[in-house]
């Protein structure tokens, strides 16, 4: 008989290795899925995981990985703070959209002025936009006790509508001949987040690295990070330790909103280029997977975001080269989270084989 036995202390080795095991199991199950779809599983896996990094055209795909990973890192770092404290911001996608709209709007207001001051101003506006969108569920929660999961999620759809309205109305390119979408930031150097477009480097990557470092310091060296962890582990002990739950909710939702807003801002002024109806691409939701895949640990999140970026880039490649349906790639990403959560059990429990009867 197989039984689960609670470990006295969570296993550190397993906590670190389960993401890796989850990736391997996902590869195996994904391979099965692809073979059912009539594709050669080994080739499909190779196309997704190997070719973008080491294949013939890796020089093109490697920067793509960073472009995809940067917003995921930024958002997931913010989310991980709240998740550690048991504050569930599911609406990062909405904060991502609002950050993009606010940052882009400030930049477009100055078009075509060229000044070094414009871009910092836009960054602040982008962060504030996301922050404000995150504060809505935060304030409702502390004032009226609403559920932040529902409110933040619902606000994604509100943001989506705002995005559509902006692309068709207020922010539409006056010279765009009636097509939806704002001016393209590639035509506006003062407002572009590219550092070097050819090399695929933009400011979002720099901010993502800074976020990882700050979050690491916050969680491991600062009392605020300790209070965040304490609140997640034992809310009553946190109150006893003098943690103010209201302030913590405002901080966590505000920070994750601001970081998601930044991610959206760097995306709209760089890789995406313009505010448009189809700007929202699901980074805000994928970042939830990234946060958990990375164990809510800053460095883990960095690695997980790169892996997730790999499935995006490799998935595109597999779509193009092998004709895999895009839904299959999403199933693949979903499997990853599923196996990770399932394997999580092993960090707190061990599997023991027991002979029948000796309960």
């Amino acid at each position, binding site marked *: 008989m197989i039984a689960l036995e609670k470990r*006295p*202390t*969570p296993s550190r080795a397993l906590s670190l290795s389960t993401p890796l095991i989850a990736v391997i199991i996902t590869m195996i199950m994904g391979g099965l899925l692809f073979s059912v779809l009539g594709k050669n599983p080994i080739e499909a896996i190779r196309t997704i995981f190997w070719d973008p990094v080491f294949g013939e055209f890796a020089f093109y795909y490697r920067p793509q990985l960073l472009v995809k990973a940067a917003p995921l890192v930024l958002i997931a770092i913010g989310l991980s703070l709240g998740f550690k404290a048991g504050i569930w911001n599911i609406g990062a996608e909405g904060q991502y959209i609002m950050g993009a709209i606010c940052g882009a709007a400030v930049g477009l207001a100055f078009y075509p002025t060229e000044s070094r001051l414009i871009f910092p101003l836009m960054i602040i506006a982008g962060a504030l936009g996301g922050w404000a969108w995150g504060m809505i569920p935060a304030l409702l929660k502390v004032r009226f006790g609403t559920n932040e999961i529902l409110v933040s999620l619902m606000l994604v759809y509100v943001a989506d509508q705002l995005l559509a309205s902006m692309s068709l109305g207020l922010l539409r390119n006056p010279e765009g001949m009636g097509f939806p979408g704002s001016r393209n930031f590639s035509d506006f150097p003062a407002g572009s987040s590219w550092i070097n477009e050819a090399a695929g480097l933009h400011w979002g990557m720099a901010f993502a690295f800074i976020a990882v470092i700050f979050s690491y310091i916050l969680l491991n*060296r*600062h*009392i*605020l990070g*300790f209070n965040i*962890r*304490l609140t997640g*582990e*034992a809310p*009553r*002990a*946190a*109150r*006893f*330790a*003098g943690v*103010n739950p209201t302030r913590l909710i405002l901080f966590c939702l505000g920070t994750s909103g601001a970081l998601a807003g930044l991610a959206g801002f760097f995306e709209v002024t760089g890789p995406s280029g313009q505010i448009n109806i189809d700007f929202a691409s699901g980074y805000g939701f994928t970042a939830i997977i990234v946060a958990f895949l990375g164990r809510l640990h800053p460095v883990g999140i960095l690695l997980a975001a790169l892996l997730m970026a790999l499935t995006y880039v490799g998935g595109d490649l597999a779509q193009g080269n092998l004709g895999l349906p895009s839904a299959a790639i999403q199933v693949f990403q979903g499997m990853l989270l599923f196996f990770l959560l399932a394997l999580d059990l092993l960090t707190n429990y061990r599997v023991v084989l027991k002979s029948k*009867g*000796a*309960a």
Partner: protein
Amino acid sequence: MSTPLLSIKGLTKTYPGVVANDDVSFDIGTNEVHALLGENGAGKSTLVKMIYGLVKPDSGTMTWNGQLFAPPEPKAARASGVAMVFQHFSLFDALSVAENVALGMENPPAMRDLARRIRRVSETYGLPLDPNRTVGDLSAGERQRVEIIRCLLQDPKLLIMDEPTSVLTPQEVEILFQTLNKLKAEGTSILYISHKLEEIRALCDHATILRLGKNVGECVPADTSARDMAELMVGDTLQTPTRTTEKAGAVVLDVSGLTLEPTNDYGTTLKNIHFTVRAGEILGIGGVAGNGQDELLSALSGESLTWPDSIKVNGQDVANLGPNARRGMGILAAPEERLGHAAAPDLSLTENALLTGAIREGLTNNGFVNWSKTTEFADTIIKEFDVRTPGNHVAARALSGGNLQKFVIGREVLQRPEVLVVNQPTWGVDAAAAASIRQALLDLAAGGAAIVVISQDLDELMEISDRFGALNEGRLSDLRPAAGLSIDEIGLMMGGAHGMEVAHVGDEEKEGASA
């Protein structure tokens, strides 16, 4: 004597690195109340787990009414007539009393019938309990009643009770003893685990004493002094706490007109509480669980804020200050619930040292944690309070209750409090550790701190407090000098027998026969 109900011969159980039970033998007779004595880690729990079928012995045999008895699982043990009231409750907070009871039954009856049976058993055995209440809102004492009633519904032949009286008033203990004596007269044997030696002397027919997994002696408790039993248990002469307090300095803690609504629906409202504690004084506050102890602690620790001027320390109003501001002024507290309130279960001891030590020990600098200093502080607690742990990196939940309690108390005591409030400082702690915790509190008082000890252990309160009061439904009785208080007087201060009735098992049978 005829065949014993349960005869244990040479039971041995080894865990990696520890011999939990080493060749233990004893008999429990029919109609006998048998005491099992021993310090934490002496192997009592392993032994009763083997009887209850939770653990399988490595060697040795048990016979039940002359038949070989080797229950493979608790279900089998229950079927034979063994029931157990655990020290750590196995109840679901979100379910009602009746639902919790139903979960422990093989074939639970319809909820309404079950509720009726629970009411009847609770009245019969003097354990008042509303079957429809949610367990999460019950006090520790009431939760224990759920466990006891759950067992009594099975009509057990052998009832195992692990420290059952910690949460009862003296009158209630007496009534419980009458219940147990009635049960014994009805033919139920009881295996009674307790640290309270006087209780064992009053109740038990035989006692088996375990030390380090071995049976080190048996005695008839009525003929043996509590001190002799304690020394057998510890294997050494017992240090009784000594006090060297020079009496009464200036008033440090001044509580007046403290009123506080509870944070949950079933909590107790504190009503107009007045008391003062002087430097060097220990105020003992007794009372049955759930009469406002948690609320009083949270009002004093700063977790709940109260009306201005209701709590003053050294003349300064602190009623509107949070826990950390109060820590800054030297007001420290140790709550009753070790895991989840006083300490975070999954965090390491070092991190738990930071939990309350950050302010007074100066463990942070501009908000940045000085981990080396924190580790030092944790190590100091571990060393000074003899916390048995492989190291400071161990998660709090991995420690035994007693060791974690030493850590939690030590953490506050070592921060040199001016006012210390502790709730149940020695709950579930073995005799030697309890004595050292009490000694630490006495030493602290001798050093000039004002101490409030909230406890349900009256012996403890009588031993260490200068003055005594009792909480009853959120009100505090008048305070009286502890010296010279009789058990009856204390019981009355605690509100008497709290609506409990003397068990009327005989009546119940008549009623059952006529029905």
